[in-house]
């Protein structure tokens, strides 16, 4: 399911850099220190791991729910295992990675809080990217249309959507507070993949950011 979502993101209007790589993945990759050890949860077809390997020289591992995604990744020479973010993270020892990444997957997990807590236990840092449900287009759809929103990036009807835990940027900030995560960096970007003004207030990001990427660490 996660991989289906990612493929949709890949095929739909996901903004791409001149090299063809997805902008959101490049933004995630940018937050990772070169040469570090990384776990990518919801590795999809392995594009992020490939970018991390080629551009950041990281020692990357992945977990992916769908069998097709895993087999595709392994055939590409990536270290990916079949597993479920909701159940399998408990098996990982503390501090096993420098970064644990959850890219476009948070909203499809059953227990986002538990997943985020595990991420910050397994890794020194967590990187989370997600679609912002507070974006003005989504608000308009609900306000005027009266329907659950669907967009190019999130094309499902509510009854078949794998995305069961949507949140806004503001909501995610609350989750960070609840789990005791420290926000090191955050970027919101618009539909064209252009990052919003760095010093803009949260309400601005929440209204105009189509997607967000957060770099988190453990507090204290």
């Amino acid at each position, binding site marked *: 399911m996660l991989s289906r979502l990612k493929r949709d993101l890949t095929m739909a209007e996901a903004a791409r850099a001149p090299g063809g790589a997805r902008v959101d993945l490049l933004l995630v990759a940018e937050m990772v220190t070169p040469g570090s050890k990384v776990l990518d949860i919801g590795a999809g077809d392995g594009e992020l791991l490939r970018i991390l390997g080629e551009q950041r020289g990281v*020692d990357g*591992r992945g977990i992916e729910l769908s*069998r097709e995604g*895993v*087999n595709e*990744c*392994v*055939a*590409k*020479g*990536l*270290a*990916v*295992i*079949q*597993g479920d973010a909701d159940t399998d993270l408990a*098996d*990982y*020892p503390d501090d*096993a990675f420098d970064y644990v990444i959850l890219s476009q997957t948070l909203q499809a997990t059953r227990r986002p809080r538990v997943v985020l807590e595990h991420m910050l236990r397994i890794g020194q840092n967590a990187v989370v990217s997600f679609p912002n449900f507070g974006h003005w287009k989504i608000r308009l759809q609900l306000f005027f249309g009266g329907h659950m929103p669907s967009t190019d990036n999130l094309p499902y009807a509510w009854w078949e959507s794998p995305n069961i835990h949507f949140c806004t940027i503001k909501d995610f900030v609350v989750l960070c507070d609840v789990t005791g995560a420290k926000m090191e960096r955050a970027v919101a970007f618009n539909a064209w993949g252009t990052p919003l003004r760095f010093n803009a207030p949260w309400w601005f990001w929440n209204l105009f950011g189509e997607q967000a990427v957060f770099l988190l660490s453990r507090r204290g």
Partner: protein
Amino acid sequence: MVEADFSVASDAADRAREADIPHSLVVRFGMDRPLRLDAGIDLAPFQIAYQTYGTLNAERSNAVLVCHALTGDQHVANLHPVTQKAGWWETMVGPGRPIDTQRYFVISPNVVGGCMGTTGPASTNPATGMPWGLDFPVITIRDMVRAQAMLLDHLGIASLFSIAGGSMGGMQVLQWCASYPRRVFSALPLATSTRHSAQNIAFHEVGRQAVMADPEWRQGRYFGESTSPRRGLAVARMGAHITYLSDAALHRKFGRKFQDRENPTFSFDADFEVESYLRHQGSSFVERFDANSYLYLTRAMDYFDLAADYNGVVANAFRGAETRFCVVSFTSDWLFPTPESRAIVHALNASGARVSFAEIVTDKGHDAFLLEEPELFAIVRGFLDGAAKARGLKIGK
């Protein structure tokens, strides 16, 4: 005819010769270089029969060890000298195959306790001039691996580029990574487990009892008494063969179809195609395999429990491992089901090893690792490509 015909085409003397003077490369270790067995016995002299494919590069860095399963042997990718059939992994190993012999130097030894030229119960005991039979010491997976390490020393290969094997071969792969982690750059344990399950030990025990119940087994001294426990061994093979397949595969292949007849004969003849198939599996197996060897190798698998050597924690076996692992299981494998592979993966994750894991959808059961499985081929190829890149392997000579 009511009883199955398990008479053999090749005679016992031929097979006995293969055990001592095989159609293979052979390295002999003298009294000065014994094999230290887990049973506390030094096996000496002993020999290892093996095949190689491809060319070892100048850096000696492209060697791949292929470990065979219970009833396999060293003839991975050449015509089998006894059966005249294709090698058991010809689809995987060869020029342009996933384990590409144009890139890699493939070594495949017969295991200790086997019957195709490496010392085992069918080999001649130098003390008596007769086959070892049950005087042969009980061997373990670790003993097999220890012998293979001696073979690599002999060949001057300090570290393997990769090691691959399914089932009992996969057990050897895991044992290698635990015993000699620095000698293994990458590893492919397929359809295997870190320990033999109670159900699998039970199946093996049925097979062994079938062999021992054959009056021609003679407490393992059938060579000296010119008998052969082929009925018992064939029944053991028939039972085991069912466990290598799956309900779905058997149904797809045979269903309830009759064999060369329209109606049941109201007898115990092989009315059903599946019966006829199993009898054929049994009788062709006894042509090429030694009954005592079957006892010893099944025992070695039963004893395998990697965690037992590491305070009950499998992860400790791989602590600090730098080996790159690719674990593969098959959905319809009920002998080494996916949860066993998952346990390997969890242990490797816990020890921080670099691991890939894929489960392949197939109805072919445990034997899928030996069969035409394009997804398996793509995964093995991709995994080895990635590992070759990481090792900086030069292609060609």
